[in-house]
């Protein structure tokens, strides 16, 4: 089994297959699994996300062309 729990059964019916980009069952199950992780519940501290993105932005802002 691809997923560590029964996320496939919890995957929401997104109704997105009638038109638009088709989302696979395994992808929808993965989304449900991610949403249900303890660190993705209300009140979770996401300071690290902002810090990591800012660090990346500053890093690439310093890039200079060398040739």
């Amino acid at each position, binding site marked *: 089994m*691809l997923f560590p729990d029964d996320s496939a059964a919890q995957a929401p019916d*997104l109704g997105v297959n009638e038109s638009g*980009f088709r989302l696979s069952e395994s992808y929808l199950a*993965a989304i449900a699994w991610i949403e249900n992780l303890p*660190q*993705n*519940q209300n009140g979770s501290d*996401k300071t690290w*996300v902002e810090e990591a*993105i800012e660090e990346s932005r500053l890093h690439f802002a310093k890039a200079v062309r060398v040739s």
Partner: protein
Amino acid sequence: MDRFLRLAALLQEAKARFVVIGVWGANYYAKSASTLFTTQDRDLFLPSEPGNLLLVWQSCRLAGLALSTGDEPLGEPIDDFLAERVVGRRALTQATDGRGLDVDLTLVMEGFGFEEVWNDRRLFRVEDVEIPVARLSHIVASKSKANRPKDRLFLETHAEALRRLIEGS
């Protein structure tokens, strides 16, 4: 304080309603820095309410951001009349500090109404500021509906990242 956090804090103080959507919203669900997606824009989904839009604009101004719509600066004065016109057209407003903080203030999220997204939002915390973020499933479904090349690229890359993550867990 980080520039976006200052804006978020001002929006909370003004009791303006907004939800982070798009790639930036999806990033809040990442498990590690290696699975973050780079994006310049931050998308805030707002209800189609002139009063709320005006609160958001005022907060942006307080945060030192310049407002524009299309390629033009937002008209003056920013007031109820202007907000009603923008809401009537479902127009996008953009806010920028000109130094890397670019925020899209959108009244449209493909496939969803504001209340549905708002009611299911997650409230994450960055430092001591609460950030309302759309459900990842809503962000992904909206991108699927929008089906632009950049949406397809995100979905394919995101699906692959999740597959690797889960297989490695």
